[in-house]
């Protein structure tokens, strides 16, 4: 099946164009935009890890190494579309318009972190594995019923394909022919469990065959391949041609979370090796250099601009006043039923309020 689902590339790991048919589509402005978004995600992610180490936020989930998969796919979506991330996909949600401040607040244990900016259809990070595939199918189904051309994209990892909800999400999408893109980031590990223990199948893309839907396998560290193949899948969905399962081959350089120690289950030299050969951000830099698009001053300037944006978001996160405990009581229902109201009053009374 690996031969039937070859890993598609547009640039190779040295940033060399390997598919000439995309040359004219790779405009300087598109290339630069993808590059900037990836750098922004990477710098944000490193900040997240540092903030956790300094005790300024709680457990943090890093995604460094997966920027091309997340940014390329998110850039293929349009205003009004729906996005369903996992806890490792803030690179995608930030690209799709989530607020840096709220994403940071999420990792600081604040409920407001689940709230997207007004008008952005971004679901809170799905914590139970694969559960979000069905929500993406449902929202896409609703768009179809409403007669719009909007679509949903849902992110999930290689481990998620083992859950029952993976099957149910793909099957419903197939049966009802709904406009959803199932975007799998195959980073080879579900916490500590390597993909060989997760499935006997050699690819995830081949699972599309069982549902008679489109399936494609891309180099998830080639942002151009991710962008154009996701765009194709989304356009197909908008035209009423149903769902696509995309498998993006990638790698997380770091731990599963800041509470995890990857040296227990894998050789971290592999991350060093992958960073040196085929890093998703470096690849685009190399491509730009080959194509005479690289501008050192531009690169330095955007890094400074991004760092300023991130530092401002961190400052805003830290200035955010502590939430009042009423937030815990007042959003369970539209109106508090008597038990919640009584418990809230009793708690206030206990505090002498």
């Amino acid at each position, binding site marked *: 099946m690996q031969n039937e689902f070859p890993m598609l590339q547009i640039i190779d790991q040295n940033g060399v164009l390997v598919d000439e048919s995309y040359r004219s589509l790779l405009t300087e402005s598109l290339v630069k935009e993808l590059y900037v978004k990836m750098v922004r995600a990477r710098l944000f992610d490193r900040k997240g890890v540092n903030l956790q180490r300094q005790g300024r936020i709680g457990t943090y989930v890093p995604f460094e190494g997966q920027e091309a998969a997340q940014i390329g796919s998110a850039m293929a979506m349009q205003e009004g579309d729906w996005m369903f991330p996992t806890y490792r996909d803030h690179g995608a949600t930030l690209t799709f318009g989530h607020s840096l401040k709220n994403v940071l607040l999420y990792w600081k244990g604040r409920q407001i972190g689940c709230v997207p900016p007004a008008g952005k259809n971004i679901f809170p990070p799905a914590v139970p594995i694969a559960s979000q595939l069905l929500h993406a199918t449902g929202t896409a189904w609703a768009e179809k019923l409403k007669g719009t051309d909007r679509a949903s994209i849902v992110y999930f990892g290689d481990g998620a394909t083992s859950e029952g909800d993976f099957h149910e999400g793909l099957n419903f999408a197939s049966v009802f022919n709904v406009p959803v893109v199932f975007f799998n980031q195959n980073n080879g590990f*579900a*916490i500590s469990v390597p993909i060989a223990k997760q499935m006997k199948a050699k690819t995830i893309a081949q699972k599309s065959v069982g549902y008679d839907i489109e399936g494609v396998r891309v180099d998830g560290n080639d942002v151009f391949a991710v962008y154009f193949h996701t765009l194709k899948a989304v356009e197909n969905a908008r035209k009423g041609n149903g769902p696509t399962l995309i498998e993006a081959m990638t790698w997380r350089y770091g731990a599963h979370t800041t509470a995890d120690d990857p040296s227990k289950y894998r050789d971290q030299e592999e991350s060093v090796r992958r960073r040196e050969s085929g890093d998703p951000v470096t690849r685009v830099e190399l491509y730009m250099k080959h194509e005479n698009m690289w501008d050192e001053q531009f690169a330095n300037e955007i890094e400074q601009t991004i760092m300023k944006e991130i530092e401002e978001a961190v400052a805003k996160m830290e200035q955010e006043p502590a939430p009042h*405990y009423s937030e815990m009581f007042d959003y369970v229902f539209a109106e508090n039923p008597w038990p919640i109201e009584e418990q809230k009053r009793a708690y206030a009374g206990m505090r002498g309020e």
Partner: protein
Amino acid sequence: MTTAVGTKKMTLVQAVTDGLRTMMKEHDNVLVLGEDVAQNGGVFRATDGLLEEFGDQRIIDTPLAESGIIGTSIGLAMNGFRPVAEMQFLGFIYPAFNQIMTHATRIRARTLGAFTVPMVIRAPYGAGVRAPEIHSDSVEALFAHMPGMKVVVPSNAYDAKGMLIASIEDPDPVLFLEPMRVYRSTKMDVPEGKYTVELGKGSILREGSDVTVLTYGSLTEQCVKAAEAASEKGYSVEVIDLRSLYPLDKELIAASVQKTGRAVIVHEAPQTGGLCDTLISLINDTSFFYMKAPVEKVTGHDTPVPMFALEDHYLPTSERIQAAIVSVMDC
């Protein structure tokens, strides 16, 4: 039965590992399976070292599927094995709910004992460790409500090992909950080798004569603290660690509340339909005419466990427990 010799200082989570190791050594049919349990030794290291000792046919990293883990464990248990299945967090157990509710708990009843499911489901539970969303649920009452399943919760290392061994030896499904908040909070002497703590029995953590505090798992420490603070006000508080949520230790609870005539029930799970309701029912059935005051409850609220910035407002504290003690004493 005990063949224990000597003791070792252990945390609760180390006692869990030791209990698993003891039973895996003694019985070839004891298997441990779950997500990240083998190579990684469990996300809390509860199964650390077992892969090296017993190999990958006895301790198994499964695909990421809770329903799959429990469903296949049912089959393994029906066919000669004693699986100990780990749910990484109790909040991740919900995909397996169907397998537990419709199969694990009723295969004995459906087949009049022809098939049985001697399996253990281990799951860390509870809030208070600044964990991410959904990692802090305390939904033991859902399972205590299920006919056909025992639900037990140790609060210390000694009980953890003895109760885990008893759970593995039990002929029926047991949900073995591990309070992650106290996984590593203290060390205590734990006997080496095999011993059991009988399931269905609570224990008296602190004797008293004025009021009985009924609790379990993660909050025993807060209850003892509250009892000590109340003793400074002249109140004599008995603290009972229930240890078993199904079945409850009816005799122990009844004897205590009949002695004191007052009860405070403490758990972090949401209130409505929580164990507090079953306990009040038990007190009503056994001890109604002994009671000097209405029973007080100190519990989580009828809300999802909030993200960690607010979890201290959700969790019962020693102060809330003290206030309840004073309230039943003043009644």
